[in-house]
């Protein structure tokens, strides 16, 4: 987000449209050239593989989870992972302070992270795209209003606002999603707006207007396909940011209710036992890092692919 805000935030923003070198030929074979780029990028392949795995784990959590993530076993508290002496058979990553299976809790935690990450990203993406398209297309007062609003929101430490709102409204999964979603629209709005600003003066838009297309038709038929690439890039990177944000809230005990296993919540519990039972914090933290890292690698690859010139 910060990078986006720097790029899009330079005062000569109206002129900053990243020059899309004639998009037409690329679009025809977009999918195929994407696969071709992917084949050359081993790191991105691994990242994508991990990502697919994480998503599958989240979807099939009840099937693959070896134990009930909430089942307590106070006799077998704080048992180490299976390869450490003193381990309890079956509990591959050990047990936590209430004797719950760490692996099962991580598996179930995947669901919250992915749900919040994707849902908050979609929400902010929809809001940001609509605002960005409208602002870029119509300009004028509405544009000035929303861009000022974006400035204000970007100028504000959002985690603080999220904390206050979550506490005020009482923590729940949906409150977390909505709060994070409402905090993330700005980077979409800015990038999409500048894309649309350049698109609206392109020949194919003029041509569409000449044959009688109205604004809505132009937006959907001619603008939409051309903003999908930047949208996919920001969206991917933002899922990672949202997952970290959710984990941060849960770590502080202010995210989803503590009865639901989350990676951030496990980290907070694990920190209390870090001297004796390192596995609780380490494995839940690794789950976060592995997921966000593979999302970021994939996002970087998408960005390089969509616009090789923009970043290096």
């Amino acid at each position, binding site marked *: 987000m910060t990078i986006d805000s720097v790029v899009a935030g330079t005062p000569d923003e109206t002129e900053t449209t990243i020059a899309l070198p004639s998009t037409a030929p690329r679009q025809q074979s977009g999918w195929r050239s994407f696969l071709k780029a992917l084949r050359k990028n081993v790191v991105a392949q691994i990242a994508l593989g991990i990502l697919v795995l994480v998503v599958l784990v989240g979807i099939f959590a009840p099937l693959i989870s070896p134990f009930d993530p909430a089942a307590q076993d106070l006799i077998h508290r704080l048992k180490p992972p299976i390869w450490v002496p003193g381990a309890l058979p079956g509990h591959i990553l050990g047990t936590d302070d209430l004797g719950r299976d760490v692996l099962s809790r991580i598996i179930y935690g995947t669901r919250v992270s992915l749900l919040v990450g994707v849902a908050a990203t979609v929400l902010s993406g929809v809001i940001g795209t609509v605002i960005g398209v409208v602002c870029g297309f119509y300009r004028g007062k509405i544009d000035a209003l929303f861009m000022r609003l974006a400035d204000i929101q970007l100028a504000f*430490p959002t985690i603080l606002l999220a*904390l206050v709102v979550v506490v005020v409204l009482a923590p729940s999964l949906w409150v977390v999603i909505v709060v994070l979603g409402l905090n993330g629209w700005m980077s979409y709005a800015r990038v999409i707006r500048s894309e649309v600003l350049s698109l609206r003066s392109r020949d194919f838009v003029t041509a569409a207007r000449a044959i009688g297309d109205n604004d809505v038709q132009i937006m959907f038929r001619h603008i939409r396909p051309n903003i999908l690439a930047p949208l996919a890039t920001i969206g991917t990177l933002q899922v990672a940011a949202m997952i970290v944000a959710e984990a941060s809230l849960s770590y502080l005990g202010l995210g989803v209710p503590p009865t639901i296993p989350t990676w*951030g919540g496990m*980290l907070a519990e694990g920190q209390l036992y870090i001297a004796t039972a390192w596995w609780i914090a380490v494995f839940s*933290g690794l789950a976060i890092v592995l997921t966000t890292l593979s999302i*970021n690698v994939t996002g970087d690859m998408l960005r390089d692919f969509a616009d090789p010139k923009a970043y290096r």
Partner: protein
Amino acid sequence: MATTVTTQAPAAGVRRRLGARLAGGELQQFILRRIGQTILVLFCVATITFFLVRLTGDPVQAMLPPTATLDQENALRAQLGLNQPLIIQYLSYLGGILHGDFGQSLFFHQPAFDLILDRLPATIELASGAMVFALIVAIPAGIIAAVKRGSAADSSVVATVLVGQSTPAFFVGIILILVFAVNLHWLPAGGMGGFNHLILPAITLGLYSMAMIARLLRSSLIDQLGEDYIRTARSKGLSRWQVIRDHGLQNAALPVITIIGLEIGSLLGGAILTEQVFSWPGVGRLTVEAITNRDFPLMQAIVLFLSVIFVVANLVVDIAYAFLDPRVRLS
């Protein structure tokens, strides 16, 4: 980056002249407009937090024991001014802010502003430590990666940056505690004290900024090194290092300065988590205490206070940017 204008690096004289011209009218206007915007932002923040906090209902219920009588409740309500219409409360709240009165903490029974000022030095120490760490690592790393682009050094910088950006601060902190405090016993696991206590929290908090700055410096320097004026400087006989130092870095520094300013905000936000991990007695921990105690006046004051710091940092960055880069269109 955004400005693809390929100008020669303006000589010092030209730059000074441009600066002087801008300082005359345009720059002044720009600064005034930005200050106006800043005040507007702070007003919005104050208003939003006020009404947000009021949404939670009656703090009096939370403050008194359940056995309190209705009379006692009303007395306290009157004492806190909560029996007045909302609009009057709002105006007196705004009036108080203008007089430096940010309300009274319900939990600590002290003026909220004093509490924040008490905790501020700790946070400033932590944030400065983090920024120093970030710069010490990021600047050489960014330069090496850009100059030796494609080398093993570059790849490892890029990989470190990616990991740094993907790892939440609190996990970094916990791992550092596990390695350096629990296992090696080299450094304390938390609390505030001498320099020893600062090392782990500063690294934890600075890691993300480090990654951002290194990444941006690298890409910005790569951009600059491809420019014509670099070739000119080389062909006039300057050494590779001289060119990088006197020409490349000078121009590559602009976006980096912007991000350093913006990172001040993320350091403050991140301080909430880092201070929590290391039991660092700063504003971040005060924030968490205020939130868990439902101490709404204190929350309100902290939000406003941090916004002021953050927004003013942004303002300073913008103005510095306009001074440093005459190409920035001031409209």
